[in-house]
């Protein structure tokens, strides 16, 4: 085989390998290290290095280096004139001797001389300097031919693309990180706003102060017990916090009436789910079912609820969760016309109305959550904080819950709270 043919095959082999290397999913460092090997090995170049350009710091940072000596700078600062010249030059290899007029070369002249650099190739991709390749003389001792330069230029383009891709990825990661932080801040702001709203709703009713917040927390416990995804659990809590937002438009004297309200007043009060829906609907919530939870949290499985008298499957699932949490809180807190009821009586009521007013598996989820706390299976005493120690230490509460759960539905519905994100 003639030498030129042999050389051609060897060089094309290197180019093909370089293309593969850039296209595959190796780490960036590994890709650049192999790329440098391929450039050096394709033309028999003793030593060299590849640098990545940082446009923020205006410097070349060496990514791969072979044999250039321990004192070769790992970071090389550039000035505006250097950058301008590199852009004007493009991917064309620059002879070190000719490029010595540039400020960059004057600063690092000694280092380049010690390393015996012969060529420098600015990696210019889409009119942007992304890096550089530094090369010493060929092992043959011959000067670089035009053929060699073309090969170096072609290989430089491959390496430049790899560096540009890496820069793009780093930029995307930076932006994604920024977006994540912004999103987290927005979520925090949203959560704080929701809690502020809940507090505002609760302030209107002096007898049920803290009701919305408690319902939100019960919804959270139930949703977690139902095995919902973390964002759906958050959504359930929000639905609980805001379920009574419509009460903001109901007269305070009706809400705070220290007696059983009459039919007219009741009709006025019963408008709050629809009003709540209208208030919440125009808001872009991260959880889409929040307005529906407000609208239908007084519906019952047997169709005897309001405002629309919906039946079981017609009721949005989140509204069923809020319904139970709302009723449970009403039963376990003092009202102007009624003292709170003992735990045993509440459990009995919930069981009796399971399948009529409440979804059985949601009642079971609430019971399970309580039982885990009573039996010490979970350390976090959420119910104790909400109901008080005395209430949770009522006699036989554990065995009543166990009894209620035996034979109770074990189906755990999932994915019932839709989210926007």
């Amino acid at each position, binding site marked *: *085989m003639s*030498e030129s043919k*042999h*050389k051609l095959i*060897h060089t094309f*082999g*290197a180019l093909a*390998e370089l293309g593969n290397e850039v296209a595959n999913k190796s780490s960036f460092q590994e890709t650049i290290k*192999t790329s*440098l*090997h*391929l450039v*050096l*090995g*394709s*033309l*028999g*170049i*003793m*030593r060299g290095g590849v640098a990545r350009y940082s446009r923020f710091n205006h410097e070349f940072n060496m990514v791969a280096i*072979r*044999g250039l000596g321990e004192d070769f700078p790992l970071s090389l600062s550039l000035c505006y004139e250097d950058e301008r010249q590199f852009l004007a030059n493009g991917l064309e290899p620059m002879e070190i001797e000719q490029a010595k007029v540039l400020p960059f070369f004057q600063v690092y002249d000694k280092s380049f001389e010690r390393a015996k650099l012969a060529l420098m190739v600015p990696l210019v991709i889409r009119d942007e300097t992304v890096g550089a390749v530094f090369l010493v003389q*060929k*092992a*043959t*001792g*011959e000067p670089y031919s035009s053929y060699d330069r073309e090969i170096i230029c072609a290989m430089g383009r491959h390496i430049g693309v790899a560096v540009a891709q890496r820069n793009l990825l780093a930029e995307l990661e930076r932006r994604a990180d920024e977006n994540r932080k912004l999103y987290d801040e927005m979520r925090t702001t949203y959560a704080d706003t929701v809690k502020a709203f809940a507090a505002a709703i609760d302030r209107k009713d002096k007898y049920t102060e803290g009701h919305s917040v408690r319902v939100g927390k019960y919804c959270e416990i139930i949703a977690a017990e139902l095995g919902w995804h973390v964002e759906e659990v958050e959504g359930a809590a929000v639905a609980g916090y805001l379920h009574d937002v419509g009460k903001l438009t109901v007269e305070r004297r009706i809400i705070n009436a220290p007696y059983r309200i009459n039919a007219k007043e009741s009709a006025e009060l019963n408008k709050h789910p629809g009003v709540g829906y209208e208030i919440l609907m125009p808001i872009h919530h991260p959880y889409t079912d929040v307005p529906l939870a407000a609208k239908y949290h007084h519906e019952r499985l047997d169709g005897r609820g309001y405002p629309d008298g919906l039946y079981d499957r017609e009721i949005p699932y989140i509204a069923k969760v809020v319904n139970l949490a709302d009723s449970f809180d009403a039963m376990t807190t003092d009202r102007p016309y009624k003292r709170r009821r003992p735990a045993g009586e509440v459990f009995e009521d919930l069981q009796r109305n399971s399948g009529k007013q409440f979804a059985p598996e949601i009642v079971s989820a609430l019971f399970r959550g309580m039982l885990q706390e009573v039996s010490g299976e979970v350390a976090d005493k959420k119910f104790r904080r909400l109901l008080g120690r005395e209430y949770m230490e009522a006699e036989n509460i554990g065995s009543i819950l166990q009894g209620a759960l035996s034979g109770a539905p074990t189906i755990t519905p999932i994915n019932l709270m839709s989210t926007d994100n």
Partner: protein
Amino acid sequence: MESANPSDINQGKAVVLAGDYLNKLTGDLIERECRKRIDEGCRQLVVDFSRTEIVNSVGISILLGVIDTAANAGATVVFSEVNEHTAELFDMLGVSRHALVNPN
């Protein structure tokens, strides 16, 4: 790549056996082994190519690195049992200017 037989390491001479294909995977191992021998005081490093059929560009770069390391340590490098194709490649790329190449 197989490491050298201890009997081959004497009087400052070490033999490192290259595998059948000197590429990215095997090249790093050979380079590490050669550096280790040189650090141990070897003054003549013999890389045995008797089982090597192909040396690609990565392989050439690694061998040039071995030559460079050896030269800096005052050691010499011999590439032995090199097949005709590889010997031509070494000549063409100037490898043979910096190391003794013994064809098989």
